[in-house]
């Protein structure tokens, strides 16, 4: 049964990147609807993700929140100097499951399962940027057993280990040069690594100086996904190069960066809540995607991400016993620097608009709806650091104009007693 469950989770975990590199900020319906604030909000079991310290303040003994999103991400690319047009349309299904159980007055235990990182981008095979990426599918599930300890009336701490399980598939053409092609299909290498496991942790505190004000901080550590002995498979290899390009294994490291969040919430009236979060994501850990092949060759792909910030505002209005309405807005900085704009994470700074509501069926069970619309300005940028693995000569810069739209409706249930 457990195995079946984890299989189901894996198939659900297909997620799509947006602005923040390959970070997918869709970790709970209620909080997403509030601009994905939550480090200082105590609403539901979702707080196990946003700030484990907050679990201690949940009223009910048992809280469960289960939800998922349909993530629709479209990116178009064009370059009028060469009359290029390309498009990637991807659908992801990030999900989350949170449960908390109040053991006693000062101790609450919880379990969080969520998919904070992922990237699925699928350009047409052999498109103009095929030497950088044809398609990528990166998935990671975090499982996080958590405890929260209340220290006195106004203060709590919380945290727990994170067990991350991930997989990566990556396909690119070997060279821009059609010398490496068969009947018009470029020679491509497919990298496939599954069952990558890594450990990290989350920790936070929450401070309630008054009935109305909460202040929170949460830190989630960097998790280094180390793919070892993955499969590197070549396809469409011309016959003269068969001996050069035989299937092999690969090693690669991909950091899932640390994230620090601070924020506050303020209960303006008994019905009206305001929240503000600030995220700092330590993307500078992502220096390069370097792949070492079993045959001794290497592919060096500088990324040179920079640390980035996200500013979030959210609000909630509890209209009556049945309906609660939420809205939010955030600004998300891209960690990608000029000249490193690779089409595997083809997105720039964005602005997120969120909304949602909860319909409370009864005292125990509620249904949560959310939606997110991410607005991107179009951007002219390029990737200037690619090298032809055959000649070891730099490839020409690859760039153009990119424009993305991301839209994500979500649904979930909240259960508690």
């Amino acid at each position: 049964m457990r195995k079946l469950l984890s299989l189901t989770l894996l198939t659900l975990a297909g997620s799509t990147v947006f602005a923040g590199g390959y970070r997918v900020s869709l970790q709970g319906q209620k909080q997403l609807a509030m601009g994905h604030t939550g480090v200082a909000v105590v609403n539901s079991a979702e707080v196990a993700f946003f700030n484990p310290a907050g679990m201690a303040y949940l009223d009910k003994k048992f809280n469960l929140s289960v939800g998922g999103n349909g993530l629709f991400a479209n990116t178009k690319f064009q370059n009028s100097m060469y009359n290029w047009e390309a498009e990637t349309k991807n659908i992801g299904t990030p999900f989350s499951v949170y449960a908390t159980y109040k053991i006693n007055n000062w101790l609450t235990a919880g379990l969080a399962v969520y998919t904070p990182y992922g990237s699925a981008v699928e350009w047409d095979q052999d498109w103009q940027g095929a030497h950088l990426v044809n398609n990528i599918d990166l998935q990671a599930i975090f499982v996080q057993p958590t405890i929260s300890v209340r220290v006195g009336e106004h203060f709590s701490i919380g945290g727990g280990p994170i067990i991350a399980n991930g997989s990566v598939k990556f396909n690119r053409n070997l060279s821009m040069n059609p010398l490496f092609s068969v009947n018009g299909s470029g020679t491509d290498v497919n990298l496939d690594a599954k069952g990558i496991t890594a450990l990290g942790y989350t920790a936070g505190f929450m401070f309630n100086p008054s009935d109305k004000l909460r202040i929170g901080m949460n830190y989630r550590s960097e998790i280094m996904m180390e793919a070892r002995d993955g499969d590197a498979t070549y396809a469409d290899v011309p016959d003269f190069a068969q001996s050069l390009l035989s299937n092999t294994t690969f090693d690669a490291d991909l950091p899932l960066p640390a994230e620090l969040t601070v924020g506050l919430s303020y209960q303006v009236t008994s019905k009206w809540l305001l929240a503000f979060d600030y995220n700092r994501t330590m993307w500078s850990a992502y220096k390069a995607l370097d792949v070492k092949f079993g045959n001794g060759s290497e592919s060096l792909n500088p990324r040179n991400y920079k640390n980035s910030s996200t500013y979030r505002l959210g609000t909630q209005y509890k209209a009556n016993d049945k309906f609660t309405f939420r809205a939010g807005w955030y600004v998300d900085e891209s960690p990608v620097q000029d000249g490193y704009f690779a089409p595997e994470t083809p997105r720039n700074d964005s602005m997120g608009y969120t909304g949602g509501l909860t319909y409370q069926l009864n005292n125990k069970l509620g249904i949560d709806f959310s939606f997110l619309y991410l607005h991107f300005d179009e951007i002219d940028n390029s990737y200037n650091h690619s090298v032809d693995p055959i000649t070891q000569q730099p490839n020409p810069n690859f760039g153009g104009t990119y424009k993305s739209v991301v839209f994500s409706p979500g649904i979930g249930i909240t259960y508690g007693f």
Partner: protein
Amino acid sequence: MKNNFIYLAVLAAGFASCEPEFENNVNADYTSGDANFTSYVAVGNSLTAGYMDGTVSRVGQTYSFPNLLAQKFALVGGGEFTQPSYAEDVNNLGGIQGLAPTRLVIDASQGRPENIAGTPTITLTPQATAFNNMGVPGAKSFHLLAPGYGNPAGLALGQANPYFVRHATSSNATVLGDAMTKNPTFFTNWIGANDVLSYATNGGAQSNGNTPAADHNETGNTTPSTYGSNDITNATTFAGVYSTIINTLTANGAKGVVATIPSVTSIPYFTTVPFAPLSPSALGGATNIATLNAQLYNNLDAIFTALGEPNRVNPLSATSANPILIIDVDATDRSAQIAAALTPTLGAPTATAFGQVFGKARQTTANDLIVLPASSVIGTVNTSSPSTSININGVTFPMANKWVLTSTEKTKVANATAAYNSAIISIAASKNLAVADMNSILNQLVTGLRIETGQVYTANYFSGVTSESKVLFSLDGVHPNARGYAVIANEIIKVINRHYNANLPLHYVNYFPGINIVGSN
């Protein structure tokens, strides 16, 4: 429930509006400017036909620069662009059945260029159709005006061209006449290279390989029908023909681009084999070299030096690369003196034979250009030699006239090229036509041509997989490969954009194929 449907409809509309939209579509600013591409016609020779790797093939033809241009013209009102049919070339082998061999490829197992295995399936079956691409491989300037150039009956007499035979609309049609039936609104004209190139590629020799071909700028002959196939066309004749072609093409107001003729020094056919290709090790090392000097080179050096030509032949070096022995038709004939000098040691009959062999011989100098096909001849046994002691091509037996474009011949080629190009430029100016100066563009290949993607290309011949991406010429050493034609198309597009205030996008050259390599052949 009804409400739910409304919500769903709103939601669906939300997804639809989820399409990213650019402020300016990719093609928003494309324009034909002052040009009208409704009917684009290309006239010219092999360079216009998409000839590469020694032939036209079905796939190769798709990379002809006019076809690449037409793809961009289509964005701004360009009409259909047709090319002579190569549907017969099912397996893309090129060649012509019974006439011309298949296309050249690199055989990786042998590491050398070879004609791809198979028999050509391209026939001379007349298509009797005028096409937008009227590039006829082998055509010289005056051929475009020659009735019967596509008459099958003229093939055996050398008066017709098999490629034009395939599509001439009638037996007395002219290339230009057929082109004009397409009522061009825009044209490219890149003709004239063969007026000098066939002389150059044959080392200034007639088709027998020995007799010098004529430079009609020297003879003053202005009647092309009397020209040998490898002769240099008289520049005045060229200018007259060129004017006729341009006057005809522009008669109905068509605009266009004319292209200049590249110099031979930017073509790997002439630059790949060095003038001194014989390394000491290739000559068998110091001992062999000493023997060659003692038996041949010292004697020739002594004889020529005594006659006042001390550097015509020098002893071979055991430490640095050596030039080859060639026949220079313009050299002073020393056969009698050589025979006389050698008679005491070799006897009169042998000495006379040696005198015949070496009478016009000399070693190559840095001013000579050795043609590409010589690379597979130098160092091989020459069966026509009178003696097995002097039968190694280029080493002990002088290479025939056709293998080398000597400095004298090179000057004739350069002078003719310059004269043609100045005619092309002034005739174009008189009609306010755009000029694509292919001569100056391809000359940049000598030091490295840097294109808009940042890639640098050279005039080098294929020399291995790791440098293949810099090679613009196909394996025949004269014609561009697909990548090279893309560079040419782009240069013409830039000229059109400039001259006709157009805005056409470029081809991305790096994505075009270069050399075809097969694992085995």
